[in-house]
């Protein structure tokens, strides 16, 4: 177990190194930071002096090593716009995004398993065909369009749910304020969560359906039938567990992807998370914040994937984490 963990951590570090390199390389190509800092009225002499002070004249390698050294100490640079550490800016926005992703994940898990299983068991039923048809529609429509349509229907026409912001939020710990403790908070998170889930949910329904149909063809399912086991037990004990193994792997990657998808959802719903923040940072050419965002999202990606691999090992008895390593 320990050897496996160490191995995974080393892999994670390697991935983070590459991400940081790419993120840092982008920095040099996003315009002149001095223009953002000092504006038009400063003389060329002063500019050169500032460049020297900021280390912008050093070689790429020197600059990267300085950046990486600072990053390891938790310093990802200072946002030009907010005039405070970029990591702090992101951490303040992070809980809103994570809650949104969490809400979408709940919807995806809660719906994809029953829908996927049903369409696999009854592939020819009318309802299955409707679900599969809708899933194609869901995959095809971009998130921002789904979001705008939902705002139009549920906020503008029906007036059931609010269309923007987080509503009443309750502080929990540190920067973390939650939507899940007030009715108003719940009302505000519903539409953005559905919008965010709208792409992934059909994908997961189709994935679970395809896996399940394959598992139902397997010899051990036929054998279970030959033993006289009840259908529900065959579906949910024999087949579902085998179905979910590959789904877990894909799911881990998709949760990471969803963090990135929040950029669209948060923008449409004016959700004060880091996706919305990222878009603003791009508009303001707030380079340190953009770089910090890329690194934080990369980090979340790496962490979720590592956790998912560990869970996979726990669920699948043929993978023995305790004995894995080297």
């Amino acid at each position, binding site marked *: 177990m320990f050897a496996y963990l160490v191995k995974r951590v080393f892999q994670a570090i390697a991935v983070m190194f590459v991400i940081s390199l790419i993120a840092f390389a982008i920095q040099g190509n996003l315009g002149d930071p001095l223009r953002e800092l000092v504006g038009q009225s400063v003389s060329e002499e002063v500019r050169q002096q500032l460049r020297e002070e900021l280390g912008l004249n050093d070689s790429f390698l020197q600059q990267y090593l300085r950046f990486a050294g600072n990053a390891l100490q938790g310093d990802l640079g200072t946002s030009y716009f907010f005039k405070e550490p970029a990591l702090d800016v992101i951490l303040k926005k992070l809980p809103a995004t994570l809650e949104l992703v969490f809400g979408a994940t709940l919807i995806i898990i809660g719906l994809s398993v029953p829908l996927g299983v049903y369409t696999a068991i009854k592939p020819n039923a009318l309802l299955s065909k409707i679900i599969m048809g809708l899933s194609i529609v869901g995959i095809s429509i971009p998130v921002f369009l789904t979001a705008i349509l939902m705002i139009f229907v549920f906020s503008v026409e029906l007036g059931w749910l609010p269309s923007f912001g987080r509503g009443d939020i309750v502080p929990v710990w540190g920067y973390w304020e939650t939507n899940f403790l007030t009715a108003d908070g719940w009302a505000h998170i519903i539409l953005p969560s559905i919008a965010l889930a709208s792409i992934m949910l059909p994908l997961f329904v189709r994935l679970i359906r395809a896996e399940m149909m394959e598992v139902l063809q397997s*010899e051990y399912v036929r*054998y279970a039938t*030959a*033993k*006289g*086991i*009840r259908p529900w037990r065959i579906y949910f004990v024999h087949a579902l567990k085998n179905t979910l*193994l590959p789904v877990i792997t894909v799911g881990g990657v998709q949760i990471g992807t969803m963090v990135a998808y929040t950029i669209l959802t948060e923008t449409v719903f004016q959700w004060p998370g880091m996706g919305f923040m990222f878009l603003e940072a791009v508009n303001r050419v707030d380079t340190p914040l953009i770089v910090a965002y890329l690194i934080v999202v990369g980090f979340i990606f790496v962490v979720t994937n590592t956790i998912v691999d560990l869970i996979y090992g726990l669920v699948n*008895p*043929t993978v023995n984490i305790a004995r894995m390593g080297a």
Partner: protein
Amino acid sequence: MSLLSVRDLTVKFAMRDQTVTALNSISFDLAKGERLGIVGESGAGKSITGFSLMNLLSRPGYIDSGQILFDGQDVVQMSEKALRSVRGNRMAMIFQDPMVTLNPVLTIGQQMVETLRAHRKLSVEEARQIAIVKLREVYIPSPEERLEQYPHELSGGMRQRIIIAIALLLDPQLIIADEPTTALDVTIQADIMELMLELCQSNQVGLILITHDLGVVSQMTERTLVMYAGRIIESGSTRSIINDPQHPYTQGLINALPQQTLPGHQLRQIPGNMPTLAQVPPGCAFNPRCEFATDTCRSQIPKISQYGDVEVACHEVHRLQTEPAREEEQA
């Protein structure tokens, strides 16, 4: 009354562009505690017969017509619920490949306990105790520990023993074993067969053994059916079929055994291949491969008739008897 009575069983497969007949009106009986072998080449319909007996055919196969009377009740007409109470309980099945038969994510214990609890009102602990007893019967060492293990932790031979133990869990009247040793090492095959024979005899369980191995059939069974292209072409006591086969196909099968050829000589084989289900020739399905085929064989399907100690479906069976010189000619 016989335990199992199959009458005119016809199984078809609905393919995209046509419907093919996999089993063509087969009939046979099995007495209580009797051991029956079904032999034939791949594609003869042996396994389909086995699965049909449990009404376990999966699409696109289906039972088109006929009766399968098990203990007086027709399996073909049974409701799903009635079928469930028969499957694994009064009629158990041993599958071909033990590596893929057990569910990889459930422990041996879970898979045994669920079988018992599907048919009897038992607590988990009671079911475990029965499972341990049955594992001992199939000579599994330290059965308590095996219950906690997953299939991948056990060898193929061990898994097949466990599958035999599962088949015996509810003291069935009939076990259908579909090539139970094909996927195993040769050294283990004999052990498994011996174990099955011993258990069937001591528990008075009927056995239908599906195999292509005539040697196994001669050791294990009292009666034998020979199948070809979805039909039974010869049946009778195993002794008669092995020692005095009547159908040219059965003769060919026995001559093809390596034991029938002197060392250093080329193995004898039946020329050609079994026809695919979509291309069964008219008349006797074996006629293109048969050296005795006549025009009658090429146009009329032979009926089953009693000949000597066996029932055989062959137009030329009388002529074969008067031309016993065949063996010498070839040698």
